[in-house]
């Protein structure tokens, strides 16, 4: 559904690339997570794929359309939920969705149904300007589904939402996946990516470092750790030790044999830890 080959993009239109030589493919119905710290090139890539930024160098096809020569009807296939909410503040939630649906040439969803889905069912007649940040974010998310997109771009879809609402949003994304909607998820929230994505791509400084499924990444790069709390000379001590590294394994044995263990937990490597290990960079 999405093919990207040797994508480059420079805002200054010179050799200073915000995105350089990025290539990947996303299959129909796949949820692909594009992960990286701020300024890594996530939004730039998404901007080019969604047609918001002009394709300068490389080849990109989205839903069979060549992004180099964008046809307006391509947007009938695309849904886009922005990181920063962008709804008309002077219009009600329902008016926002009703206006937006008129801009599409395809069958659209009922605004009331979408509002109900994101927990705004009883807020349809309230002006978006009176909404909280989270409510606006949900309205932006709901709007991205109005044209039944086959390709869905989600930029930080759960940012600023309370856990219950974030769980609802995740459920919706799962439901859409069952309908074979292809999702391009941009986030720096590794937990969301871990839970939702079939595959993830790590991008740093405009370069795509690797692509794989979270499970494979954990198998390949993840180490199991043991967090041990024990008492030594009357003082509580806490250590985190690898279950793979020989030196750490010997240390675990030594602690068990010689000290009073207070707590001991095994811990699987998180996607965030793997990201740091692979890229040498944090996610902030």
């Amino acid at each position, binding site marked *: 559904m999405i093919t990207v080959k040797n994508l480059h993009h420079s805002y200054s239109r010179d050799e200073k690339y915000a995105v350089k030589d990025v290539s990947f493919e996303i299959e129909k119905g796949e949820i692909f997570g594009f992960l990286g710290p701020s300024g890594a090139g996530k939004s730039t890539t998404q901007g080019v794929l*969604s*047609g*918001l930024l*002009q394709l300068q160098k490389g080849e990109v096809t989205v839903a069979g359309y060549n992004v180099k020569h964008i046809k*307006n*009807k*391509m*947007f*009938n296939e*695309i849904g*886009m939920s*922005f990181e*920063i*909410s*962008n*709804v*008309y*503040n*002077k*219009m009600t939630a329902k*008016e926002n969705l009703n*206006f*937006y649906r*008129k*801009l*599409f*040439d395809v069958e659209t969803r009922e605004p009331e149904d979408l509002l109900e889905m994101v927990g705004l069912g009883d807020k349809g007649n309230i002006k978006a300007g009176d909404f909280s940040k989270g409510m606006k974010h949900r309205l*932006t998310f709901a*709007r991205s589904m109005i044209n039944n997109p086959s390709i869905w771009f989600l930029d930080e879809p759960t940012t600023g939402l309370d856990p219950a609402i974030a769980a609802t949003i995740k459920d919706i994304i799962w439901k859409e996946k069952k309908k074979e909607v292809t999702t391009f998820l941009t986030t720096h929230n590794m937990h969301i990516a871990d839970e939702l994505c079939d595959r993830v791509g790590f991008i740093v400084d405009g370069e795509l470092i690797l692509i794989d499924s979270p499970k494979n990444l954990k198998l390949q790069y993840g180490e199991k750790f043991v967090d041990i709390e024990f008492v030594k000379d009357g003082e509580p001590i806490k250590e985190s030790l690898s279950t793979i590294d020989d030196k750490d394994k010997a240390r675990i044995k030594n602690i068990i044999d010689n000290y009073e263990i207070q707590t001991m937990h095994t811990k699987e490597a998180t996607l965030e830890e793997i990201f740091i290990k692979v890229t040498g960079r944090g996610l902030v």
Partner: protein
Amino acid sequence: MLKKIWAVYIRDLKVNTREFITLYLLLIPIIFAFVINALAPSINDTTVKLAMIEGDNPEQVEYLENFAKVSLYKDIEKVTERVERRDNYVGILPEGDGYYIITQGNEPAGVVDFTKALQALYVLDAKVEDSTAEIISFGMDIPPLKKMLVNISILFTSVLGGMLIAINIVEEKGDNTISAVNVTPISRMGFILGKSMTGLILPIYGSISIILITGFSHVNLLQMMLIVLSASLLSLLIGFVEGLANDDMMTAAGSFKMIFLPVAGAVAVAEAVSDKWQWTVWWIPYYWTYKGNDAVLSESATWPQILLYTGIILALSGAVFLLLVPKVKRGLESH
């Protein structure tokens, strides 16, 4: 495509009716028209207003009413009170077999002299029919002041359309909604056209309201629309540029006021400067709009004249268009 353009226009209209400043802009043409009606004299208005005593001499009142506006009061005291107000009322009061005239003292000399002459003509029993003068009319049956005010209002209305566009664009920028529209199947040109409709429909509705309310409904509407719409094209282009260049509504409206400088200059030169200096404002499209509308309101406009003025306005606007359109497109892409 038309459906989408219409949707953009209706959205703007709906939002414009919810904001005081934009609602005010929408109503300005009607307000202008009523103010013109209230302030500008009609062709049959006289400049002399007389205050007299009720029932004193009905025959005299009937005679004077042919030439002046006569108001009747019950006694001398009331007539005096009326004359002492700030406007230009002159009192005619009986004294013995004759009459005397009272004034506040600050009336124009012509008003007082005309009152005296009227009183003398009444005493002499002079009739209009007695006049031997032949009247040769140039056919100017429209009050010049009223025509000028109507013309300025129509010009102002065609500029206001651009201001409304600027405000609507600022709203889109403030809400970050242009990027959301950019990922829908509406083309950039479709979106621009949808936004432009406000800048075209306001001048159409505004100028029609003004001419209907002020009593100019007999003018050639088609000629007027041609002139108004061609002037509006330039206003809406400036509206887009100002909207994209400013981040809040008040700044956009403030910046847009700059456009009133050439508008005012064009009107001032057209009205007050001799013919040999008119060329100094030929470069201002609104000068030709004013001239064209002046001819339409005077009912002296010919089609070749209107087409020439329209052509000049479009040519001048076209030059500005070529200069500014890339800026507008870039602005819409970057939001």
